[in-house]
Each structure stands twice: as C-alpha cells, then as structure tokens.
C-alpha cells in the first residue's frame, strides 16, 4: 500500500512531517507493507495535512490529519475520510494545465514526472526550430504571470532575434506578493516542470544558461529546486546535450536576500549581478541587454512552467481556455480570511464573487466579506459591489484593479481600510529601492498623511490624493507607481473608514 503525505511547506506548516512519521511508525508496528510517499500539495490548504491512501490506483483522501488520526485511517474507520481526491468538488471544478502534476507525483522522481506527461513538450520542442517554438508560445496567447501580463511569445521573439554570443533565461521566483504561493507550489511540487519550461525557452531563443532567482523566504523550495537540478543534470535533462538533442542548456539556483523590489525584473538582474537591487530605467529592455548585458528572457515561474503543456498539447489547446485576450488558465491563489483557501486553476473568466463566496466558501470567521485585495500589495481593494467582475486582465483593469500574480486576499468586516491603506504606504517605504523621490519620500509622507486622517484631519484626504497622483506619475517602477492603487481604492470605496472624528481619535 502507498500512502501520500505532502511535503509542501504549507502542509509542513500544519504538521505534515509529524503525520508522515506517524504513518510510518504505525504501519511498521502493525507489520504493514506501506510505502510513505511525499507529494506536493493538491492546493486544498484547508484540508492540509491531506493524507492520501492509494488503493487499486485510486487515491482516497483524509484531512485535515493529525498524528492521532493515523490509526483510524489505517483501520479504515477514520472520520476524516473525504473520498477519492480527484472526485472532490474543488478538484473537479478546475482545469489544471500548469498544475496538472502538482500534488499528484513525487516531485523529485523524474520517472514519475515522465509517466504523467512530463518531458513530452521538451521532446516535441527538440524536433522544432527556435522560430517554431517561439511561434507556438505566441499563438497560445500566454501572457506573463508575474504581474504585467506582457505576451510571452513577443518577449521571446525579441530575444530570439537579438544577436549575441550568449543569451540567458532568468526565472523570476521572487514571489513577494502577499496572498501568492503558486510559484512556491510548483517549485516544491513539480520542479521538473519549471526546469523543462526553462529548457524549452532556452532552445526557443538560443540561450544555453538559465537562472532561477528564488526568494530566501522559501527554504523548502530552494532545497527542492537545487535537488531537482542535480537530478536533472545526472539524467541528461540538463547539461551539454539536453535529452540527446545535441543542444546545451544548464541552470543554477540563485537565492534572493529579502528585498521585495528585487522581483522587479531589472532590480532582479542587478541583484544577480551582485549589485544593489535598484531598478534600471528602460530602455534598454532586458530582452536586449539583460543579465551581464546580454539578451535575457525574464519570466515568472508560472509563465515558464506553463510552456511544457503548451508544447505538449499545442497552442490551440491552451488558447481554447480563457476569456477574450486573457487566454488559457490562471492558477488563482485564494487566501486570507476564507473558509477554503488554496490554489484553484481555472480558465480566465470566473467572476470574482464566485471565487470568493462559492469556491472559497466566504470568510473563515463567518462574518461578511468587506474587501478583497487582488494582485498583491500593489493591487486595488475591491468592494463586494464589484463581485461580478470576471477574472481577466482587461476586465480587472476596467474595474480599477489588476490581476497581478492572481493572489486573492479576503478581509471580513473587522478590517479597517484606513489601516490597510497605511500599511500599503508603509510597505512601499520599507521596500523602496530609493531611486525615485516620489516613491522613497512620498511613501513616508503617505504614512504621515494617513495618520493625520486617522486623527480626524479631513483636510489631509485631498493631500493624500495629490500625493498618490505624484507617486503614480513620478515613479520609475510599479512599487511607487502602483502603491496608490490599494491606497486610493481604500479611500474611494470605503470612505466611512476615513471619516474619523476628532473626538473618536485615539
């Protein structure tokens, strides 16, 4: 018998390692022949640790499991039984393309990876020219999942056409946005998928070297990725002759150092070069002068990890999902005050309210939803009045918001939106790279101005509005330029929280 216990850090954070030990110990004491396998997470974080007992090819789920539940699970009498995992509503409602294998396979078992469709995309790419690979990605409609939504194929075309003795693929795994963990889940749960995507990118644009810039806050993901690179090298997936193609591609993991702004691609490149992580002015585009001044593809983890399935199933298959110009699927991460938090991959187009109230089941506290922040700390706070907004780039833009890396953070009615606006400014002040005055100084002024509003000084509200305009217009990157989104959306959509009376002030 096989028993799966996730090794994903969210599962570990909820006690999965102790559960895995308990399963092994209990099985041994009963003399049972049990193989304990460690998988990634299925993404149903509210059920973690989610234990799966594999019987006749079907995986029966139990969760959330504590070590004390283990004997009953082995007896077949556990009240934590959920039924077959693939039949659970959360799983059935998704279209898992990027996340097809996450939670299913042993992340570091390359043969398990292949048995579940892995390497098919790379094998197909090996038989294609660089132009054909890039065209396939362009036709899939894939847009960058790191935040800006720039078409991946167009970026790759620029790098493909650039003349240079060296080109690079850089994977942006800085995932600093609050409410996001999809990159982490891929790296911990299906690292070969990212490696395969990077190798295809390398073949496509003619780059032989890749880097993953991985945030230091993710020690588990760093360990899995480093091991996967070693396994990949030993198996000939990486190195001088990728899968016998005669073409070279190798990669390294680089660890960040706790700076949010280093997720911005030019700051990231400076950081990798050993410099302060200040943002570079564009042009030149990284696609032409990137790492070490060479043409460089910088893509988010999800963008790159989606490339294998595009090559495997074809551009048309991928583009068949989605809404309008938002093609394909989006791994949406639902977090904060929700009953069911986790990762839900679906074609673009689902209304925000359906995600929050139906998929996530509303708040964990049982209180009414007050606000939803989509797209991380630079994303707007949306009001439940806006719940019919379909999850799509253009649709969110029209609603005065942004999708970003698709983190959805839910707040109940105990949230104080003035405090959240203050936090947005404070975060910008802490993380500013310091290059532009409106960001560096403006964010500090923003905190002070919001403090004045909190003390009942209503005249400070127009000052805050002006300040936000200055930050928007005068910032080089989206840290200073987009911090006004959460701030002004809070002011405009939750005016009651900013109408403090002097006597009520603390």
């Amino acid at each position: 018998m096989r028993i799966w216990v996730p090794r994903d850090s969210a599962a570990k954070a909820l006690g999965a390692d102790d559960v895995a030990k308990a399963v092994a110990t209990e099985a041994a004491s009963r003399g049972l022949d049990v193989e304990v396998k460690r998988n990634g997470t299925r993404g149903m974080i509210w059920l973690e640790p989610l234990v799966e007992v594999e019987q006749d090819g079907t995986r029966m789920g139990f969760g959330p499991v504590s070590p004390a539940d283990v004997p009953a699970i082995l007896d077949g009498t556990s009240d934590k039984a959920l039924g077959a995992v693939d039949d659970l509503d959360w799983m059935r409602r998704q279209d898992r393309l990027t996340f097809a294998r996450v939670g299913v396979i042993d992340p570091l078992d390359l043969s398990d990876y292949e048995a579940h469709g892995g390497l098919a995309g790379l094998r197909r790419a090996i038989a294609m020219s660089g132009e054909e690979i890039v065209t396939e990605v362009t036709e899939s409609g894939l847009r960058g999942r790191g935040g800006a939504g720039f078409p991946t194929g167009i970026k790759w075309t620029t790098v493909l056409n650039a003349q240079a003795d060296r080109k690079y693929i850089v994977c942006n795994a800085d995932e600093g946005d609050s409410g996001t963990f999809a990159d982490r889940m891929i790296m911990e749960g299906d690292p070969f998928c990212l490696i395969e995507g990077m190798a295809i990118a390398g073949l496509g644009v003619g780059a032989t070297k890749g880097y993953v810039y991985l945030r230091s806050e993710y020690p588990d993901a760093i360990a899995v990725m480093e091991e996967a690179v070693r396994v990949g090298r030993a198996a000939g997936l990486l190195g001088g002759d990728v899968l016998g193609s005669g073409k070279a591609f190798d990669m390294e993991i680089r660890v960040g150092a706790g700076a949010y702004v280093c997720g911005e691609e030019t700051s990231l490149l400076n950081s990798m070069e050993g410099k302060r992580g200040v943002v570079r002015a564009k042009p030149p585009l990284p696609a032409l002068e990137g790492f070490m001044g060479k043409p460089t593809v910088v893509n988010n983890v999800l963008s790159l990890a989606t490339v294998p399935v595009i090559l495997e199933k074809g551009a048309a298959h991928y583009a068949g999902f989605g809404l309008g110009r938002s093609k394909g699927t989006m791994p949406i991460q639902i977090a904060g005050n929700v009953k069911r938090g986790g990762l839900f991959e679906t074609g673009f187009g689902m209304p925000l309210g359906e995600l929050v109230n139906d998929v996530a089941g509303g708040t964990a506290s049982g209180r009414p939803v007050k606000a939803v922040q989509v797209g991380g700390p630079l994303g707007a706070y949306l009001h439940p009045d806006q719940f019919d907004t379909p999850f799509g780039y253009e649709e969110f833009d029209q609603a005065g918001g942004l999708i970003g890396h698709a983190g959805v953070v839910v707040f109940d009615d105990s949230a104080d939106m003035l405090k959240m606006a203050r936090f947005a400014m404070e975060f910008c002040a802490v993380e500013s790279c310091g290059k532009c005055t409106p960001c560096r100084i403006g964010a500090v002024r923003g905190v002070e101005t919001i403090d004045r509003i909190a003390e009942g000084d209503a005249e400070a509200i127009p000052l805050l509005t002006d300040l936000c305009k200055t930050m928007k217009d005068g910032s080089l990157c989206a840290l200073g330029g987009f911090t006004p989104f959460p701030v002004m959306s809070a002011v405009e959509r939750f005016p009651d929280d900013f109408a403090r009376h002097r006597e009520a002030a603390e």
Partner: protein
Amino acid sequence: MSAPMPAPTEEEVRAIVSGQLHLEGPLLPILHDLQHTFGHVPRMALQVIADALNITRAEVHGVMSFYHDFREVPAGHHVVKICRAEACQAMGAEALAARTLEKLGTAWHGTTVNGAVTVEPVYCLGLCACAPAAMVDDRVVGRVDDAKMDRLLREAGA
C-alpha cells in the same frame, strides 16, 4: 542557527570567498555563504571580498546594506520571523505580532535579553492560505495562534 557560531578567521573567509568566484555575479552567493557559516557577515570580510572582486569596500558595504537578509552582527540563537503582510493581517497577524513582541520584551529586529530569540518581520512566506504564518529559523508554521506562538518561543528558549 541553533548553536553559537564560531568566531571567523580571515583564512576561513578567504576560503568561502574564493569558493564562489567562478560564478557569474558571485557577490550575493558569497554574502549568503558567509552568513550561513558565521551567522552574520563579519566586518573584516568586506575587504577580503572587495579585493577578490576588484571593487571597493564601500561598494561591498553598499550592496550588503541594501538587502534585509544580511546581518553585521550575529542574531540570537533562533530567529523567529512573523509575517506582517496582508493575508496574514486578514487573520489577525497584527495583534499576534504585538503580543509576541510584548512577551519577548523587544521591538522588531530585537533580541531577547538571554540571547535566545531575535524577532523579525517578514512580508509573506507563501503560507497565506494558512495564515497567520511564522518561521523559526528555516521551519515554517501556519495558523499561528497565541498558544502555538508560546510553544514555539518556549522551544526556542525565549
């Protein structure tokens, strides 16, 4: 970080620095390696790095001070990081952090008097669906409430 770190010698620093020189952009890997080995980046390492990379000592210091991760002095035996970002705030992280700092009798970035615990803010650990989140050294913890935090602090010797 569970045992006191040995005092670094210049020879050890040199060995670590030269071990990374083959990399493209070796400075961050060097700083990480030094901090991993000694619990901080020793002051005397700056000149060694500067010489090896052919940059000024001020430049090395400029890079090091840009990043939140690098320490000029060792931390306590354990580092407790508490997430302050939005998803954790939605689940009460602010109050949890305030109570924890009060219990420890220190502010953010401070170390308990007995040297056991340094407490740091962190902005998202990717555990936003099991908030509030914390990390003790490299060990992640989710759905942290007061009881869980007390246990973590006790285990860390605070």
